[in-house]
């Protein structure tokens, strides 16, 4: 009897929490299909009277949403691919290759994690200005090409690769690059997927740096475009919700389809702070 009550309580609370977590997202979806002005009435409607795609049409036809979507895809994919390459090589080196000062260098990197990225932003802007990368895709991509977190993640995982495997390959005369591409990378596949999702999501959702370095709207990524739309079209809630859907949905779907990898990475990354 007592257990049944507890069961109802536990599951009831979980249902409530899930509702709170999902309601804003469901509401966003619903309002995005409402006719302009419909959401601003009393009582606030929960579902559209007549579902319409007008907001999406408006977004893509007049607000340039297609361009921003492509920008976001391009920038996030480039950051993902390039940072994967850099982080995998470095993480593997820290885990498996011996060189003088390895531990000290790694400790220094971990120590640098306490520095907030924003400290670097002001001089970084000046640096990119002199290289000529302000207001370009490269301006967003270049600083994200390697991350300490990513190197750490790869190192943690790569330490599990048995040394004998690598030694055997070396004795067989395989070069280091060959060992890396043919033996190590296949073994790192799970962490590659994990890191790829992490990098992609982080790049997609990034706000402050693109806001600073992208000065012209032709290069805007979705979050920047959405923030600027929100300042101009504050009263058009239906349009803004459609914009939010376009921004949120790709990453949400990506997460849902590869959830297992994402959560594993999250735990792996937090084992040691």
């Amino acid at each position: 009897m007592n257990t049944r009550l507890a069961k109802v309580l536990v599951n009831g609370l979980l249902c409530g929490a899930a509702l709170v977590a999902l309601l804003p997202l469901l509401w966003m979806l619903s309002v995005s299909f409402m006719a302009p002005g419909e959401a601003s009435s009393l009582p606030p409607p929960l579902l559209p009277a007549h579902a319409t795609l007008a907001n999406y049409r408006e977004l893509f036809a007049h607000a340039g949403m297609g361009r921003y979507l492509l920008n976001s895809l391009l920038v996030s994919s480039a950051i993902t691919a390039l940072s994967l390459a850099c982080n995998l090589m470095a993480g593997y080196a820290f885990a498996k290759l011996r060189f003088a000062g390895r531990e000290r260098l790694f400790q220094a990197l971990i120590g640098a994690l306490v520095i907030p990225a924003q400290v670097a932003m002001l001089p970084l802007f000046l640096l990119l200005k002199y290289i000529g990368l302000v207001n370009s895709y490269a301006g967003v991509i270049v600083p994200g090409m390697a991350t300490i977190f990513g190197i750490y993640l790869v190192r943690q995982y790569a330490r599990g690769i048995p040394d004998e495997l690598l030694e055997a390959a070396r004795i067989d005369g395989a070069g280091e690059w060959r060992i890396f591409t043919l033996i190590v990378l296949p073994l790192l596949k799970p962490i590659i997927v994990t890191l790829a999702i992490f990098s992609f999501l982080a790049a997609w959702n990034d706000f402050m740096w693109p806001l600073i370095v992208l000065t012209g709207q032709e290069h805007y990524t979705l979050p920047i475009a959405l923030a600027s739309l929100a300042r101009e079209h504050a009263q058009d809630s239906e349009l803004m919700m459609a914009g939010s859907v376009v921004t949120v949905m790709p990453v949400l779907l990506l997460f849902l389809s590869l959830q297992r990898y994402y959560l594993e990475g999250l735990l792996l990354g937090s084992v040691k702070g």
Partner: protein
Amino acid sequence: MSFRRSRRWRSAALLIGALAGLCACSRPHDDGQTLTLWAMGREGEVVAQLMPAFERAHPGIHVEVQQLPWKVAHQKLLTAFAGNTTPDVAQLGNTWIAELDALHALEPLQPYVAHSRVVQPADYFPGIWATNVIDGTLYGVPWYVDTRLLFYRRDLLHAAGFDAPPRDWAEWSRQMATLQVHDGGGRYAILLPTNEFEQLLSLALQQDEPLLRDGGRYGNFESAGFKRALAFYVGMFQQHQAPLVANTEVSNPWTEFGRGVYAFYLSGAWNIGEFRRRLPAAQQGDWATAPLPGPHGTGTGIAGGSSLVIFRASPHKAQAWLLIEYLSQPQVQQQFYELLGDMPPRRASWQGKALRDDPAAQAFREQLERVKPTPAVPEWERIVTEMQLVAARAAHGEVTVDQAAAEIDRRTDAILEKRRWMLDHHRGNR
């Protein structure tokens, strides 16, 4: 060995190639024919409608209009300068010209004007033209103008026994005092929102003394002239002729003006359209505009508005000048006025029917002949913000006029510290 090396090199080359590709696609395609024009707010929307005619007249030039919201325009311009991404042509609030010139961001326009048959300096209102001249060099061509003057309730003035709007401060004070005795209780003679600097600034510009001294090195707010203006301004609050409110608390100044809460309202040209739209037809005969009263007879006003500038970094300066010339043609300016209500900066453009026959606009026409520019220092925007913050405290009675004037000078001198240092250390640079 060599195999391995080449693989490694190839991967490095791939990385570099990818980066180079990214840089390459970031550069705008340069065909020498596309002009970028930045314009703010409604001007940005409307100017785009004028572009097809320009492009027809100049085949081969394509104009890309980017519209900047007013709220972020100042920041966007500075960011564009900081990031070397300035446009070819831009609309610039004329108080920002000094700021961008200090950054060496603007192209001197004198050589262009000298050979132009369209842009005739003598045809422009002199006070407005002067806002574009910094240290003797011309950096902008006025596009549209704005100034602050009096909107007044003709019927209320008449009921109080006055048949004409005031011409000088003494008459103005008399009228306000009478109106205030007449009404009282929730009604006021005049609306002066305490967080808008334009009203006090208008009064201050009517004085003989400049607002900054020693070539813009120090504030001159303790001069007798500024104190006179400040005392007159503060007096309107202390005698309860003006309510102590910020414009965020005035939800709808137009209907309040219509209801007679205020008999005078010191504001700009855009409000002609607002009053015509928002007040009922029966009331349209009750309001009118008048030039600003001065300390001794009709006074001067602020030389406000926007100019068109060419950025120094533009690779298409000749085409950019063609665009400025096009937008300076009287018939194009008349079209612009009809689309938007922005008043043209040159007398020829005022010959159009829409402007010539508009009595509300004529007061502006008269005032525009007597407008004075604000000090052309880059720090002016910050100085005038501080001026109003202190003046609002004086209006609230927290400080006296003398204390307020001293405080404004103190803050201004602090803001100008870097300017003084630069002027003193490398005079040769500028």
